[in-house]
């Protein structure tokens, strides 16, 4: 099975990207994560399962509760986060360049 392709498929979904963003600064339980979405709890659980299977999320047992957190190594491997930010600025700067060339 192509794991790399799975990672990109995992992050292609907007809800799963929102989950990653939510967990970027804190570890949360499945219940707390689900409370942030309109989707049914089983739907959110399915998203968590996919993200965990491709190692974008880690599970940590704390007493009876399981906390989910982002796996930084895997995310770094994907490198998509910083790339989108770079593209956003690249596009703005391209526009700046085009506009200012008219003033030359």
């Amino acid at each position, binding site marked *: 099975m192509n794991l790399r392709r799975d990672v990109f498929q995992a992050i292609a979904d907007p809800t799963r990207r929102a989950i*990653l*963003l939510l967990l*970027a600064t804190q570890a949360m339980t499945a219940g707390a994560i689900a409370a942030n979405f309109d989707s049914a709890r089983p739907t959110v659980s399915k998203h968590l399962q996919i993200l965990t299977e491709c190692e974008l999320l880690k599970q940590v047992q704390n007493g009876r509760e399981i906390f989910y957190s982002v796996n930084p190594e895997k995310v770094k491997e994907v490198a998509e986060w910083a790339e*989108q930010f770079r*593209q956003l600025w*690249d596009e703005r*700067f391209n526009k700046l360049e085009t506009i200012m060339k008219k003033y030359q």
Partner: protein
Amino acid sequence: MEQKTKIHAEAGKQELRVTRDFDLPLELLFQAYTEPEIVEQWMGTKVIKLENQKHGAWRFETTDPMANVHIFSGVIHDFLPFKKITRTFQMENTPFEAQLEFLDFESVEEQKSKLTMHIVFRSVALRDQMLALPFAQGINMAHNRLQEIVNKLI
């Protein structure tokens, strides 16, 4: 082809650097940052206030494709024409805290210039979250083009 815009964001650091080489003389590059009508065009925002001076303030208002209004603002700590702008940046009404931005403008040759944007965040987590923002929102070129078209219709 080598990328004109580069990003340096080391893991575990609360800062990042964006560098860009322009086929523009330094004067024009700097002008793009100081003239409100020009800032509006390339940043895709409305400029409410832009005081290009030490201890000045700035405020931009942007409407996204979903018609939500976002306000970005800050103060200008230092302003050296054609050389440097030091300012704070904050997205109002969000959990993001103010970030410190150092913009260095350099002339490379007569028709070429370079911008270095050094951004310092309050924490590593906030930096990572800011980096993740365009990704999470699914901002891409097609999306921006759509916004451009929508803006023209309004």
